[in-house]
């Protein structure tokens, strides 16, 4: 999971347009990742056995707060993946790192959000699955796991309908709005989370990965610049009787906007 600027943030570009102004931005858990955390917690509740939910996030120190939120929601363990060498990683090199971390752990299922609402690339989880050589289902709106934890049935939204996929575990699943209603971090949960440890993993902990594989040098893409959105034209309110408003609207669409 990652943390992203709060949806209400007004994004401003730096003066040279090489990035965004990060000062004053409030970061929150990526909303699609909330569905993933909730899905994981529901599985844990279903199996009631030794199922462990581990959350992991790649990013600078600010992601710790988001990890803490997931712990407060009920996750058991958290892993904070960061190293100065990771700075500048794109989705693909990020996925390389995350896959390496996952390899070190035992797992049945990796859940993620369908996309980060900041860069909207929808690539990280897919690439993690590729690196690990395991199957993946994206944009899932319903999820059933078999009682013996060997396979899942996932429903995903596609153009004009739903597709139902049955795959073997371990696998990667990305979560879409509608899958569940993420729970809030309760106050007692927040207090418990304070006592849980957040494990740190850096480059030296990841065998077979060198500085050249990660960061800007390990990335397949490079951001060359940012452009602000064009200013939106002000709203125009139509007044008068409904009949009058309709004819004004038709005229405006035809003559001013020239769309009909």
């Amino acid at each position, binding site marked *: 999971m990652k943390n992203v600027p709060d949806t209400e943030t007004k994004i401003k570009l730096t003066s040279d347009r090489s990035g965004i102004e990060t000062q004053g931005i409030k970061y929150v858990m990526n909303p699609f990742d909330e569905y993933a955390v909730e899905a994981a917690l529901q599985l844990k509740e279903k199996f009631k056995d030794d199922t462990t939910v581990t959350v992991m996030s790649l990013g600078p120190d600010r992601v710790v707060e988001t990890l803490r939120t997931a712990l407060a929601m009920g996750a058991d363990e958290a892993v904070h993946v960061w190293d100065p060498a990771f700075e500048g990683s794109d989705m693909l090199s990020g996925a390389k790192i995350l896959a390496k971390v996952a390899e070190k752990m035992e797992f049945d299922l990796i859940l993620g959000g369908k996309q980060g609402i900041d860069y909207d690339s929808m690539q990280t989880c897919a690439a993690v699955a590729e690196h690990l050589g395991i199957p993946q289902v994206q944009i899932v709106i319903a999820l059933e796991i078999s009682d013996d934890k060997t396979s899942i049935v996932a429903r995903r939204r596609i153009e004009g309908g739903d597709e139902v996929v049955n795959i073997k575990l371990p696998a990667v699943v990305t979560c879409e709005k509608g899958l569940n209603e993420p729970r809030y*971090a*309760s106050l*007692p949960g927040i207090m418990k989370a304070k006592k849980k440890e957040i494990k740190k993993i850096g480059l030296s902990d990841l065998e077979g990965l060198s500085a050249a594989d990660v960061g800007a040098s390990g990335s397949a893409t490079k951001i060359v610049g940012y452009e602000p959105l064009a200013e939106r034209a002000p709203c125009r309110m139509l007044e008068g009787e409904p009949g009058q408003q309709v004819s004004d609207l038709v005229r405006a669409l035809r003559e001013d906007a020239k769309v009909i």
Partner: protein
Amino acid sequence: MADDLPKGGSFLIEETDPASIFTPEDFTEEQRMFAKTAEDFIHNEVIPKIEQTEAKEEGVMVELLKKSGELGLLMIDVPEKYGGLELDKATSMLVTEVISKGGAFAVTYAVHIGIGTLPVSYFGTPVQKEKYLTKLATGELIGSYALTEAGSGSDALAAKTRADLSDDGKYYILNGEKTFLSNGGFADLIIVFAKVGGEEFSAFIVERGYDGLTLGAEEKKLGIRGSSTVQIFLDNVKVPVENLLGEKGKGHKIAFNILNVGRFKLGVGSVGSAKIAIDDSIKYANERQQFGKPIASFGMIKNKIANMATYTYVTESMSYRTAGLMDGILSPIDRDADDASELTMKGIEEYVTECSIMKVKGTEMIGYVADESVQIFGGYGYVEDYPAERYFRDARIGRIYEGTNEINRMLIPGMLLKRAMKGEIPLMAAAKKLQDELLEFPMMEETEEEGLLIEEKKLVQNVKKVSLLTAGVAVQKFMDKLQDQQGVLGNLADIIIEAYGMESALLRTLKIAASKGEDGADVVFKMTRLYIYDTIGKIDQWAREVLAACSDGDELRTMLAALRRLTRNIPVDTLGLRLEIADYFIEKEKYEI
């Protein structure tokens, strides 16, 4: 009480180190997470249901309260021993602030955790706590508080409801009527105040299901329409003697101490209500175009936005400074000790003046903010499709309940003088010293100091001196008849309130500047200057009235000369400051420091 803790009311005579006060900038990651949960709950659960709750749709409000209980939001102030979280007052105030964005839900919530739960928490026996408090903490039981009667509101101790011991000595039989019972429509427990034998004012824990207890119809109210307010009738209600709360005849102690807590919570609640009104107003002002421009670009609209934000900043600074004082005195108390409740009460009592100040300041600040919010929305502020009219209506109750603002204004100088007479703070000595110093001619000019906000600091010190000067003169003139001089008391209260307000904002701003540097403190700097220069003129006017009421002729002239020396100032460009302050918030589109 530890020696290094400031005494209640001592801000008037002592200097406070900015580093020593608690400010919202001091919240920990954990406290911010608590607030985030409350914020998400309000935005995702409460606000989308406001239409239903305002229409009093059956069960909706109760369900919301229960849901907040599941998240642990009702157990913040409850001791761990009884299933609570036992968190500090700063946390509890922060959560109350955030919840206060939820309109009538906030009242329902505050009544439950405050006047509904605290009487049992502070005054209950272990058995009563085990039976009731544990369930109030989770929301399994909903609480309420019946003090007011048709014939006794402000004069609460004149209640007529009576309690008589049954012949077998097992029950108190309650008879009477209570009005304006918040949460009454759905409460499971009611703290009822009644006089044993018609004499001894006492409190009882009354269960909703007891025979003889009936509810009146829901009041049709100006605001907070989603909250329940009913009358109750007690007709030979048999209350087991075990349900007497606290000592017989000591009900006033419960009534007043619980109100104190309610008062500072109401102050900080106003801050939350103000923030949502400001956020909505700025968003609207940025979107609404007239004369081809967003209305946010007009000077008079900016003027309002700057004032709204500044008054909110000041009240917020006062609130959390008070929270810090409370935590300073309450946190060392061993909650498991037998005298824990008594010490807690004493701790809160120490800061009664500050509690009343918060109540008056907060509820009047939101009155202004909500009113200007309607104005920014224009005609749309007057119709129910937009939230401004509800903010305006909802704000109005604050000045009436938890002790009207008139009653609290009397308490502010009243309590201070009482403490001074008892020798708890050396107020009188300070007033005497000041008078001598001021009447000496010429007054010693202080050495020129250098540093941030130096002029403003001096003005704040002088305002504190004005409060001593006027209070001293009033006491000398009216002696023990001062209680009957409500005009004078009201002005003294206003001067004291503003002294606390100006100083709290100044101290917080200096603390922010110390940690973030002058650049990081730019907007709070401006708000502090604006507020101090804006208010100094009012202080002067209030003080002149007091002096004229207490003296005449040469004596008055001498006093006025002394006052002039204290309030004299060279104005700064407050109009310009307002534009700059407004631009900062308009750009952010919300109240955020």
